[in-house]
């Protein structure tokens, strides 16, 4: 009885990032063709090789079918009904001045763009608004250490050799349908290069915002950590509330050289659609890293609370001997949200290690799936994997699914997978209530405890945000 009321309250919890910024923008016309791609490329004054790369990807994409293997009820996407490029008009004034309206937008979202306001200089931010990067902070400080952190377009202009060397080296243009689409039309994103032996002194952060109506966002992130370097990278995203579905197809590539260490964290809070499942972002993302050199390390941490549909599998290729990787994920789905997310760990090198911890939480009438692959290649002597995938169900109309695949071709490799599905037990709730903790607080306490292993991996600035998000996403839900 009261349970039902409480569950209803969940559906009424609001998406507070749903506002629209009224800023003058310029668009390319709707639709996708070689001509549009040439226009995007021309507008960004790209070199010929990059235009060729785009066109090649586009030709491959045209021949690919849209994948349908995920446990998702995916609406048909009309790729000709999307605007592939939108930019705030004052683009030409950059980077001297940031449009006050944009600054206000990012202020509202709590993203510090003016450096003096930043958290005592611990986070450098690259903010991407629709198709262009509007501001990158702390470049000076980073430059002194030889670190390159800038928008993708700038990187193409200023460091073409680096970009050319690493672009599509981890996610080839023809990797999958959405990666090919991204390769053809990607607009902006962040580029980050950490030179040999440098420990990045601050968290690097990209902030993505979809603003314009009818547009898609196709950003591309490329992170290269050279030998012995370290970087912690964070990514956040939001979008206005609209009753149309908007497409977000990003590609993230990470190259980790010998003994380097990369920590990649995401808090994904795209607009999830309203309580009836109208609108929301289709979040179709390809993220992959390669531990190229021996002893390298890559760690993925993600908190997924937004998007109407999430299709995302941050993966690691463990090529270097004794390299290691981790994947920590909390995915929350509510109302009509659908998530099909997980990871791939491809073990190729000797003594490689990986660890997967995935915590799914489903409420409302949502569907939440974990999909993973652990492959032990012939060369993965003494390799080791451990996977733990737990699901928590809140309410009787949601679904939680687990689809792990384990493949081993190496007798000395060890793979362990375990998964459990359960709900918040009445005993746990009773225990809390008895001690004067209100049901809602008890749920948030229990969910917090359930997700703690993952949340504790987030950088401090993100952990606070993620905890708040979890509480809002599940406000008042007692199963």
């Amino acid at each position, binding site marked *: 009885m009261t349970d039902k009321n409480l569950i209803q309250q969940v559906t009424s919890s609001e998406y507070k990032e749903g506002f629209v910024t009224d800023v003058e923008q310029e668009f390319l016309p709707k639709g996708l063709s070689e001509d549009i791609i040439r226009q995007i490329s021309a507008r960004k004054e790209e070199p010929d090789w990059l235009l060729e790369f785009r066109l090649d990807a586009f030709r491959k994409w045209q021949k690919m079918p849209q994948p349908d293997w995920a446990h998702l009820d995916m609406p048909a996407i009309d790729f000709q009904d999307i605007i592939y490029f939108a930019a705030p008009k004052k683009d030409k004034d950059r980077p001297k001045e940031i449009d006050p309206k944009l600054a206000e937008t990012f202020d509202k979202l709590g993203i510090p763009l003016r450096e003096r306001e930043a958290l005592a200089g611990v986070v450098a931010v690259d903010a991407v608004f629709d198709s262009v990067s509007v501001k990158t902070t702390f470049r000076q400080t980073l430059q002194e250490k030889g670190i390159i952190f800038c928008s993708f377009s700038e990187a193409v202009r200023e460091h073409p050799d680096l970009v050319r060397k690493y672009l599509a080296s981890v996610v080839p243009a023809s990797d999958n349908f959405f990666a090919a689409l991204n390769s053809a039309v990607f607009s902006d994103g962040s580029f980050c290069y950490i030179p040999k032996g440098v420990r990045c002194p601050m968290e690097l952060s990209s902030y993505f915002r979809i603003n314009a109506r009818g547009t898609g966002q196709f950003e591309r992130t490329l992170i290269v950590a050279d030998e012995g370097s370290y970087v912690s990278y964070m990514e956040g995203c939001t979008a206005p509330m609209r009753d149309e579905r908007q497409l977000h197809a990003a590609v993230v590539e990470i190259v980790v050289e010998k003994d380097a260490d990369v920590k990649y964290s995401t808090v994904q809070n795209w607009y999830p659609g309203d309580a009836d499942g109208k609108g929301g972002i289709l979040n179709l993302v390809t993220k992959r890293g390669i531990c190229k050199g021996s002893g390298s390390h890559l760690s993925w941490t993600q908190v997924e609370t937004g998007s109407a549909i999430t299709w995302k599998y941050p993966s690691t290729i463990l090529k270097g001997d004794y390299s290691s990787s981790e994947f920590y994920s909390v995915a929350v789905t509510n109302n009509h949200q659908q998530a099909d997310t997980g990871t791939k760990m491809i073990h190729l090198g000797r003594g490689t290690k990986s660890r997967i911890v995935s915590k799914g939480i489903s409420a409302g009438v949502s569907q939440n799936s974990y999909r993973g692959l652990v492959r032990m290649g012939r060369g993965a002597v003494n390799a080791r994997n451990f996977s733990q995938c737990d699901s928590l169900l809140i309410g*009787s109309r949601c679904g939680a*699914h687990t689809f792990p695949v*384990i493949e081993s071709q190496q007798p000395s490799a060890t793979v362990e*997978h375990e998964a459990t599905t359960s709900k918040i037990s009445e005993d746990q709730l009773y225990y809390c209530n008895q001690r004067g903790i209100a049901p809602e607080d008890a749920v948030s306490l229990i969910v917090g405890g359930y997700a703690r292993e993952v949340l504790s991996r987030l950088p401090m600035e993100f952990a606070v945000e993620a905890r708040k998000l979890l509480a809002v996403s599940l406000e008042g839900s007692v199963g």
Partner: protein
Amino acid sequence: MGHGKYIAPPEGQYQVAAGQVLNLQFTVLPGESRDVDVRIDLNGPGAEAHLKGLYLCKADEKVNFHIVMHHRAPGCRSTQLFNGIAGGTAQVRFDGTIIVAPDAQKTEAYQENHNIVLTDTARVETKPQLEIYADDVKCSHGATVGSLNEDELFYMRSRGIPEAEAKTLQMLSFLSPVIPAGQEEEIEKAVRSL
């Protein structure tokens, strides 16, 4: 074809009504390639299904398990345990799905698949899957792929047990939860032949 032998009820579909208990045992011995395809529907409250599987491969066998356990009614219980050893150039595939229908509350479903790989050329693929559409459930699955434990082997060898014998003991203890009653000798013989 050696002493290959397959002891199991016929594959196919099983309908389990309220209160009924279904027990199935699958045994695939060396030399036998098999596709085991089983679908079980638990249709009434209190229905139970318990599956055990054992497979041993030493040459170029291809063993495929495809199991669907469908909990269609509340209060049902199912357990699955499949343990196997793959040597030679064998290819083993375990594809098991547990589906819990909406409203099949108070379900308990457990599934485990453990594999030991003996050679570089054997290949094991396991896909334990859960599809759950009800909330008051206890479901878990586990899968492992690995080799014989070196420490155990060392322990036994340091106490004078020959290597081959120690390995046999390890394999037998690994298989013991799924060895069908009355077939201990036959299984032991098969393990020694690996």
